[in-house]
């Protein structure tokens, strides 16, 4: 890491940017990295970073968590999933809470482990709760294909896979004036291609930068957005992650994803129902669909929590303006994405 270069760039950002500039880092991995490197603490107050909707754990709906809990009511089920999703509550309880009731919940690092578990426990029904974006979807698709190829009959997938462009369009359509630039996730672009995020500049005339996840990558992206905002006429769309991202992305990954999934609409926690913003399994893979196997329907929930996640996510309102902040919604029992993510606006506010 070149500390001197990083420090110089931060100085330049702070020197150059004298007007309020709100930059949304779209993806949860960027949000985490920004916290880890303490980047917020280095920027002047004019340059504000907004944590976007791209943390899969944070935006998984209550109804998806409740579906997983309902599936666990069957005695012979092993529920498998990724990391910190188990901590998030549905309407009333989290998946972690089910472990106390002697339900089997396993945290895995890849969906392929779930296939192994299914093969080693033929008398059980193994369910993999898959959350993620375009980065995770090809891996899940490939696991489903492998399950079909190996004829594993006791594995099911409860998918809550989401797409980035529809939610970004949803946000920008409503509040374009509040966002002055976007930092786009390098790993999503590596799968989908540089062109996938070009609409931010083309349709909304807002600077957008594809970036990797090191301190230098993120500071470079902030620098590019600030440059563009303060120098009208400069290029607004940049790919700073050329070491991994090609224009059209990864063809094989995209084909695998399209073979197994089709686009559908879905609910985003704290944000609402967004058209064509998710992936669901095609009819040809229906035998692996946990919702069908356990006869569960994901119904959109009313915003029961009365959170102001949408406004907070956009930086229009401060966390303290939300009625639930600090009372019904705290880091130990978060309701919305801004509190679930440790670097989310509400969690940061609560902490400091």
């Amino acid at each position: 890491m070149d500390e001197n270069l990083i420090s110089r760039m931060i100085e330049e950002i702070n020197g150059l940017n004298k007007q309020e500039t709100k930059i949304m880092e779209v993806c949860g991995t960027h949000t985490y990295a920004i916290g880890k490197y303490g980047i917020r603490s280095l920027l002047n107050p004019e340059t504000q970073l907004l944590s976007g909707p791209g943390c899969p754990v944070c935006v998984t709906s209550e109804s998806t968590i409740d579906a997983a809990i309902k599936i666990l009511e069957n005695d012979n089920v092993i529920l498998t999933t990724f990391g910190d999703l188990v901590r998030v509550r549905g309407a009333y309880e989290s998946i972690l809470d089910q472990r106390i009731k002697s339900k089997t919940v396993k945290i895995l690092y890849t969906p392929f482990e779930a296939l192994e578990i299914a093969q080693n426990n033929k008398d059980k029904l193994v369910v993999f709760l898959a959350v993620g974006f375009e980065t995770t979807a090809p891996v899940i698709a490939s696991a489903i294909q492998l399950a079909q190829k190996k004829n594993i009959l006791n594995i099911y997938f409860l998918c809550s896979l989401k797409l980035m462009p529809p939610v970004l369009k949803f946000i920008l359509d409503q509040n374009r004036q509040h966002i002055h630039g976007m930092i786009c996730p390098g790993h999503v672009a590596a799968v989908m291609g540089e062109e996938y995020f070009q609409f931010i500049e083309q349709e909304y005339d807002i600077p957008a930068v594809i970036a990797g996840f090191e301190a230098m990558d993120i500071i470079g992206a902030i620098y590019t957005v600030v440059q563009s905002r303060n120098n009208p006429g400069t290029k607004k769309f940049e790919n700073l992650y050329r070491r991994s991202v090609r224009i059209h992305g990864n063809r094989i990954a995209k084909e695998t994803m399209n073979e197994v999934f089709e686009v559908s609409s879905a609910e985003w926690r704290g944000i609402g129902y967004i058209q064509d913003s998710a992936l669901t399994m095609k009819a040809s893979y229906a035998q692996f669909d946990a919702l069908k196997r356990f006869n569960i329907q994901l119904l959109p929930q009313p915003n029961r929590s009365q959170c102001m996640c949408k406004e907070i996510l956009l930086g229009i309102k401060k966390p303290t303006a939300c009625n639930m902040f600090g009372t019904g919604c705290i880091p130990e029992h978060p309701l919305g994405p801004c509190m679930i993510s440790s670097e989310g606006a509400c969690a940061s506010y609560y902490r400091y």
Partner: protein
Amino acid sequence: MDNAIKLCHGNGGKDTMQLITDVFYKHFLNPILSQGLDAAVLEIGKERIAFTTDTFVVKPIFFPGGDIGKLSVCGTINDLVTVGAKPLYMSCGIIIEEGFDLELLKKITASMAETASLAGVKIVTGDTKVVEKGAVDQIFINTSGIGQIQDNYQVKKIHPGDQIIVTGTIAEHGTTIAIEQYKLKVKGNFRSDCTPLYEILKHLEDYMDHIKLMRDPTRGGIATTLNELAVHSGYGIRLLEKNIPIRKEVAAINELLGLDPLYIACEGRMLLVVDKDKSREILHCIQQVSNCRDAQIIGGFLTDRDPYVYIENSFGGRKIIKSLEGEMIPRIC
């Protein structure tokens, strides 16, 4: 659900502390317990004796660098060492699951005996219980120990400017266990750091007046221990990221697992709070001890009365480090 004990109540972090305060302190409270040290300091006649207990439920029971037996001896010895005591005698209580392999029990016992003997400690009393299959997972061990406090060592008040030393690379034990638990197929040199720490104390005899206090950062890692020290002292702590010794492999695996090494257990490391003007000398002295070559001064206490711990990186970025909250679960993004 909130009336049930959860796994997070046993992780050594905020929830454990809450449970101790709300339940155990409430019923057991006395001036010795309320000192909140890793070992109780008892004054019996003219002698000052350290007394402690610890229970071990680690899974898997054998892991690279140790096993549940070795760990159970080291854990108790190290708690005694943190109050300046020479560990002398230990007890050993074992709960065994019906059907457990006798050969494994022999192996664990031999490991306990070897570790105790190397540390000059005798296991002088014990208890055995066998419970029906499923009532415990294989084997649980409790050890208690007593030690003689050396040269009337006293824990001292922390002041702004006091420096914090860690005696070696962090997160070795917890990372090794995580690799085993998640059955990760990784190559690399991953071994628990599980070791008795009395050797360090022997080397530091001349400096004991300048050592404010010592802690072994086990469950909850150095982050949790340092938060406790911040609250205990009433001063903030600033850590320098580049000074925190961690092996590259360990850092990489934690990144991969979505875990933060600052929260990962050490079982053979000590944190020392020392006078600033003697900190270099003490560090140099510690670095002469085998296993402690990587010791470093990782930060110090601030004049700030807000008991926060923050870490600063090489380009000045700052981040607040909190106590471990909830169960430690891999972060996915």
